[in-house]
């Protein structure tokens, strides 16, 4: 199988699985237990915390482990909005966020918070000036995605962070698609909170983390014991956390070579698929994730392309996983001004370290044939879509 869906998830690296195994077996202790077995588990998660902190240039005490990137996003937005509600009830985010931010923002609106959703331009970029204009005396938190998993665009996080700081507003960045894919340094970016997920950088599912700058108050999502410095209750998922630590260590070590590898393959895909008639690259042409090539293909559905690619042992995505299931036009593409009819033809190829030139050659060989075939049978096909674009031949 040729796997082009690394934004959905990644396989575990063998070293990561090896690091995790003892914690499924003999090292099964509870990190809060005061005897050796518990202490060993506590030391293992502290070590993982240090590795994750090093990946983003934070301090170990600023990392709270969660069950996922989505939990980290929920925790950041709800936790800070609630912690700061004495000083205001206004939240700023963008229209092109992941559902774990958009739906959390909507749930906060039901609790009486007011949310401003900043638009994005046709390449998916947030304009920091729009963020600044939206700030009111009641604004307590701004949340913005670092990079879009759907269109690959990398947002001007440093600029937004400077604006947030100048207005004394807390700034959260959803870096789930960015950590492990591009360099992320919380000190350089100047962010207050940052979400990440282990499986995005070859760690296990079931482990995520939220960076919480020292001194930032946050209301817990899950109450109970004093795990995660009293901020998130529940016995820790020790094997997954250990795996996240190992994956973070490897991501830090190999980041540059991983980026170079996927960038070369991505550029080949953009060049090869971008040539097909009525296929458009989505997202920013330059400021995009190095392993991310996304397109809208006019007159056909993304789902159809995925099925036919699967028959050729090629897998990819069409919009975000949940959007794909709900058969809805992606809110990200809609926010970018892509008409709903075209947004349905979304297709996303995201590369990983195991992808090869041959994978990409196979894709460039097969996809244009599939597009041609689907257009022939599409209700918009032949005469249908020919009427829309009479000058195009295929």
């Amino acid at each position, binding site marked *: 199988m040729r796997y082009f869906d690394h934004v959905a998830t990644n396989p575990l690296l063998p070293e990561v699985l090896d690091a995790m195994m003892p914690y499924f077996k003999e090292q099964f202790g509870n990190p809060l237990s005061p005897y050796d077995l518990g202490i060993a588990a506590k030391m293992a998660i502290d070590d993982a915390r240090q590795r994750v902190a090093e990946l983003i240039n934070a301090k170990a005490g600023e990392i709270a482990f969660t069950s996922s990137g989505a939990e980290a996003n929920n925790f950041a937005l709800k936790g800070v909005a609630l*912690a700061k509600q004495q000083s205001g009830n206004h939240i700023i985010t963008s229209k092109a966020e992941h559902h774990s931010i958009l739906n959390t923002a909507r749930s906060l609106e039901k609790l009486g918070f007011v949310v401003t959703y900043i638009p994005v331009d046709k390449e998916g970029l947030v304009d920091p000036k729009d963020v600044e204009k939206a700030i009111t005396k009641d604004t307590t938190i701004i949340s913005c995605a670092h990079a879009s998993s759907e269109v690959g665009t990398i947002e001007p996080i440093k600029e937004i962070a400077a604006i947030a700081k100048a207005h004394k507003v807390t700034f959260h960045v959803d870096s789930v698609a960015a950590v492990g894919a591009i360099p992320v340094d919380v000190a350089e970016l100047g962010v207050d909170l940052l979400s990440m997920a282990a499986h995005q950088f070859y760690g296990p599912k079931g482990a995520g983390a939220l960076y919480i700058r020292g001194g930032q108050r946050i*209301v817990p999502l899950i109450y*109970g*014991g*004093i795990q995660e*410095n009293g901020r998130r209750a529940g016995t820790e998922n020790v094997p997954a956390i250990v795996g996240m630590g190992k994956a973070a260590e490897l991501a830090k070590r190999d980041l540059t070579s991983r980026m170079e590898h996927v960038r070369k393959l991505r550029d080949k895909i953009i060049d090869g698929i971008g040539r097909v008639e009525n296929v458009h690259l989505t997202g920013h042409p330059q400021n995009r994730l190095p392993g991310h090539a996304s397109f809208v293909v006019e007159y056909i559905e993304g789902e159809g392309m995925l099925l036919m690619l699967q028959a050729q042992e090629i897998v990819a995505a069409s919009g975000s996983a949940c959007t794909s299931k709900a058969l809805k036009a992606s809110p990200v593409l809609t926010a970018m001004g892509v008409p709903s009819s075209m947004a349905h033809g979304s297709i996303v190829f995201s590369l990983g370290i195991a992808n090869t030139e041959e994978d990409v050659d196979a894709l460039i060989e097969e996809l244009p044939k599939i597009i041609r075939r689907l257009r022939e049978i599409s209700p918009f096909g032949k005469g249908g879509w020919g009427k829309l674009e009479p000058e195009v031949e295929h």
Partner: protein
Amino acid sequence: MNLKFVENVKADITSDIVYMMCPMHLLKLEEHMKELDSGQVLELLTDYDGALEDIPAWWLKTGNEFIGIDEAEDYYKIYIKKARKTVS
């Protein structure tokens, strides 16, 4: 136990544990007491009501000096002075 209310106490260390779960107030207390020199004052910021009972009890047990409590908008500031010699 009568709670003593104070204002404008100068602290050597402030520990902000607002919104952190019980018993973080006791764990942080122990941790900071190790850092402080005798006679220095710890300011503990917490929204946990139970701390109002626990901390004076801890003070009696350990022999450190409980200076008092200052109520902020939605949390408490608790002041403790490290004794010359502590029991635990």
